[in-house]
């Protein structure tokens, strides 16, 4: 048993670069410690925000030299993070969890809001494996689209990537929910795998659409996490006891079929059930 490996110790890293992605989200970069592994698409870090808390954040960027985390401010920890400047310190444990697996030949990738964070490296991984990829970026409004410009730029030079936008307010692309856009998309094209990350309500609908079309899916779930490494149990799913931190955060449709709480309820910081999903 290697506790150093499975749990780790928060290691302080200085923010090297801060990139504002849209009116809400900010990407923080730091140098990867040479002796720590790179993060595969879908893996996450436990991020120590000094004086506040430690929270899970997906790697939105991971190469030999740098790691990037894209943060949406929703509470104290994330607000503190998006205000950070180069030179400020955060602590990092990880990467943790199971990554997306690259399968099939034609993929649809559905990202809602900051859910695009783990999907960004996935798109690169899919293209590197010579797949056809349609990425559907959804947000409430055009100013909140994440990684849209970057995806457009890739698509310009790589015809295997197609981009599609959906905004709730119709300010760009499809006017409506990501799920309605996906349904429309599946009338024009087919796919042999769907990847999604975003609000659970959205993912639950994506799951049902995929089920209807009999397309395999992989979704990245969120649950409250205290340890990130299979100790505390706060991220356990009913009724199987799957742990989001260890067995996820990426789950396949067939696993999700056995998770009764998926799309229905989750738990708060005390472990109490709350009939609320994000």
């Amino acid at each position, binding site marked *: 048993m290697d*506790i150093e490996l499975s749990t780790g*110790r*928060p*290691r302080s890293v200085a923010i090297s670069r801060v990139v504002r992605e849209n009116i809400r989200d900010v990407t923080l970069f730091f140098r990867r410690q040479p002796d720590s592994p790179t993060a595969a698409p879908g893996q996450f870090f436990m991020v120590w925000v000094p004086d506040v808390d430690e929270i899970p954040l997906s790697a939105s960027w991971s190469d030999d030299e740098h790691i990037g985390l894209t943060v949406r401010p929703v509470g104290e920890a994330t607000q503190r993070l998006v205000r950070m400047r180069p030179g400020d310190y955060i602590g990092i444990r990880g990467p943790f969890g199971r990554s997306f697996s690259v399968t099939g030949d034609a993929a649809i990738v559905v990202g809602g809001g900051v859910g695009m964070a783990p999907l960004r490296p996935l798109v690169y991984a899919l293209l590197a494996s010579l797949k056809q990829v349609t990425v559907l970026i959804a947000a409430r409004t055009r100013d909140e689209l994440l990684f849209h410009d970057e995806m457009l730029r890739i698509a310009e030079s790589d015809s295997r990537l197609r981009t599609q936008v959906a905004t709730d307010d119709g300010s760009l692309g499809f006017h409506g929910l990501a799920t309605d856009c996906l349904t429309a998309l599946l009338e024009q094209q087919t796919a042999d795998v769907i990847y999604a990350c975003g609000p659970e309500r959205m993912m639950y609908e994506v799951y049902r659409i995929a089920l209807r079309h009999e397309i395999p899916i992989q979704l990245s779930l969120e649950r409250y996490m205290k340890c990130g490494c*299979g100790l*505390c149990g706060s991220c356990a799913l*009913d009724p199987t006891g799957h742990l989001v931190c260890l067995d996820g955060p990426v789950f396949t449709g067939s696993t999700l079929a056995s998770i009764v709480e998926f799309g229905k309820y989750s738990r708060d*910081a*005390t472990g*109490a059930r709350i009939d609320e999903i994000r």
Partner: protein
Amino acid sequence: MEIKGYWLASGILGVTASVLRRVHESGADVVVTKSIGPVPRVGHPGPICTSSHGGLINAVGLTNPGIDAFLDELHRLGEWGVPFVLSVFGRSPQEAASVASRGVEAKPLAIELNLSCPHAEIGQVAHDPDLTFQYVRAVKDAVDCPVFAKLTPNASDITSVGRAAERAGADAVVAINTVRAMRIDIVQRRPILGNLVGGLSGPPVFPIAVRAVYDLYASLSVPIIGVGGVTTWQDAVEMHLAGASAIEIGTGVLSGLDVFSRVREGVMTYVQETGFSDIADIVGLAQRR
């Protein structure tokens, strides 16, 4: 209940019925729940854990949804037939007793009284024999099922505390909870854990636990439930020889949920190969001499 086998220790994964069932199905004979208090409790801010020189330090801070919400989980465990022990804590003997008496509705095999969390305010109970006596007595008076007292290695004299628990009617003692510890980040120059201080568990505390079990076995007549740093069958044999009738495993689940069956099988093979007929036969054997 019979005090034997390999159990999940309190606080590791123990906050929902689902995961406790999974741990049982993966091989734990009995699962001990997270320590539950009277009301919901968020616990300490993160980081709540860090590794240290081969061990783990945690300061979860008794995160729990409170006994009322937790009863749902307990009832589910009951429906599923998962053998469980309910761990409880309270800021006073009365409070602990009231949590326990609500909990027994769900028919736990036993109540484990956590008197010993080194990083929550209730940490000091099991340092003091008198206070320990009061807690154990109050809970014993309130419930019909067996009551276990969980002790701390941070007490100057764990055997006096164990004897006080026994006098008060404890049906077994559980030793040990985590050892007071701290890590400091040398880049930011501040303690790592949100709660600053925490409790050490895992392999480093193993010989501390063996010693506590050995000392307790020599001075008590109730069974000892050994816990602390067990990750292999060799560790478990050693803990049994020191005097543990049953063994709880916490941090060891980081090596996989099959740790319980791996340990059980190793101990059974040992028992057979050394000519004994039952694990109970080796309990406390290191005490002769």
